[in-house]
């Protein structure tokens, strides 16, 4: 592996493979943060996208996907990308063994980004556990667009609340929830969602976290007629759209469900469209996966919000 080696195309909307120098690796409460240098990935990344990092744990073959938590774009040599991760398995444990100046092999940025509203609307960003990570990147971006961002950050307990201080700095308001009550409200993000959305006059909701949380948020938003975009997590073999292992069932106009690849057609989906119930799928002919996304009924339509369907 050669430091600074980069493969890919010059178009800004394509991902690259880069051999990146580790700039920092530190604990963040219960999590770890890894910063690595990559001008190309930093320049091309948008909130909601992820990177695939090669890990060196014994027998590990596949890369590991991580949401981009933040990028800094300070000229070609200082551009860094941050990811935040929970060390719970061999691959993530291996990442904790990296030192500053070590090299990591990264592919990215991958997947779809959160669509940004094309109208002035108040945004509510909901992050669960390490799922809060991409919300910081999104909040930065919304601030740059002059949009109001409120946050709900939830976790099992205080040490799993990511960067509480940063959350306060970056958002118009932040509400913390923990299941054990060690920080903020005791409970889950959905327990406070309605109150926060009402008091912040939320026009659109963004969420990232464990899929059960995303499901609960999506269902609550549907009840509240709030547009909602979620970044899902599904096991991925390739992360680049070629293996079809990462599919999510997404419901179309005709009510039928199609298997969409969350690495290339996602990870960001309209939460109201995900067929959360369709976990078991019949292996039989079904409709063709070629229809454009359709709008759910909501206060501001998706068309109004992000222009295209």
């Amino acid at each position, binding site marked *: 592996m050669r430091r600074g080696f980069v493969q890919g195309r010059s178009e800004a909307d394509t991902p690259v493979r880069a051999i990146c120098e580790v700039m920092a690796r530190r604990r963040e409460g219960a999590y770890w943060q890894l910063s690595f240098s990559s001008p190309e990935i930093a320049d091309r990344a948008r909130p909601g996208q992820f990177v695939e990092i090669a890990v060196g744990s014994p027998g590990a073959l596949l890369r590991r996907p991580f949401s981009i938590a933040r990028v800094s774009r300070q000229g070609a040599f200082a551009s860094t990308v941050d990811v935040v991760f929970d060390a719970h398995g061999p691959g993530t444990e291996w990442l904790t063994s990296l030192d500053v100046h070590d090299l990591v092999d990264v592919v990215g940025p991958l997947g779809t980004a959160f669509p940004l509203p094309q109208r002035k609307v108040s945004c509510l960003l909901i992050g669960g556990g390490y799922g809060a990570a991409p919300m910081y990147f999104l909040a930065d971006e919304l601030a740059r667009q002059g949009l109001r961002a409120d946050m709900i950050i939830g976790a099992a307990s205080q040490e799993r609340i990511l960067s509480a201080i940063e959350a306060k700095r970056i958002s118009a308001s932040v509400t913390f929830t923990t299941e054990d009550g060690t920080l903020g409200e005791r409970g889950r993000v959905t327990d406070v969602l309605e109150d926060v959305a009402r008091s912040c006059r939320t026009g659109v909701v963004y969420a990232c976290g464990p899929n059960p949380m995303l499901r609960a948020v999506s269902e609550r938003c549907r009840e509240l007629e709030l547009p909602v975009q979620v970044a899902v997590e599904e096991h991925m073999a390739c992360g680049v759209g070629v*293996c079809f292992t990462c599919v999510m069932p997404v419901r179309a106009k005709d009510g039928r469900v199609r298997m969409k690849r969350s690495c290339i057609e996602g990870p960001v989906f309209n939460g109201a469209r995900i067929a959360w119930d369709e976990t078991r799928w019949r292996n*039989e002919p*079904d409709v063709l996966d070629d229809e454009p996304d359709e709008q759910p009924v909501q206060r501001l339509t998706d068309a109004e919000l992000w222009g295209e369907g």
Partner: protein
Amino acid sequence: MPDVRRIDPNVVDTARDTGIPVDDVELAVELAGIALDNPITTASGCFASGAEIDRFYDVTELGAVVVKSITLEPREGLPTPRMAETPSGMLNAIGLQNPGIDAWLERDLPWLQGRGAKVIASLAGKSVEEYREVARRLRGRGAVVGLEVNLSCPNVEHRGLVFACSPDQSAQVVAAVAEEADVPVFAKLTSDVTDIVTVARSVTDAGADGLTLINTLLGMSIDPETGRPRLSNVYGGLSGPAIRPVAVRNVHQVATALPDVPIIGCGGVRTVADVVEFTRAGATAVAVGTSTFVDPFVGQTLVAELRSWLARRGIRTITELRGKVVA
């Protein structure tokens, strides 16, 4: 595609001192009558429609693109989880998610054709007649230079047993496809049989112009904590470097028994050394599957590295190495 710039070309070109210039190396191979610029192809189901990887590099640099198996009707495939990582490998159970032959012809093929790729169309079915019909619709399609018959599909007419496990049923499918085909036909076999040579003989007798060896091995993984199979389908296909020794053995056994049958070697190819290993075992072309998941550039890299590997050793054509096992 205009404006393609490789930010840092990864072509290793340090061969000039001891060997021959890289430009003097000929990578072209003839595969059952198909002229390929080089022996590196994709493995079916590991390259989607082709466009996904074209975001990374120009996929026409590959010898051929073997596309994901196509069925008559569209299929949405199996529920997740569809994959599980295993030591140096992975299990998958996708369930042949694909848009169906008509949509593929309408949407995916024109793109590949427009890019100028050589396409080997993989076809799958539930019955002999389904294979036949898919093959029929693939007639006369310019970019399609070959058909690959994925025999690792359950035969609904025979209690769901996989075609590839029976020499006879495999032969029936191949005969039906060969009748329709206007391009060379490859039969893709599984190693999960008692005697691969018998199956190979049966399908070549039935009209296969070549063979692809091997498909995934049937495997299973169980989460020790929950007791749940790691795949929703319970069983799935094992691929990746873990299976390479099994794939090389299959290629060598068949190439030894049927030396005139061209073989696409497949199973765990990761490095240029693996490409040479399969070639020496008897393969004419080498298909890369799971490694694309690990490194999206692997196909492009292998073409470049194969050229410089040969150049450094003063070997002018890859065909010189085919079947060259030293006793």
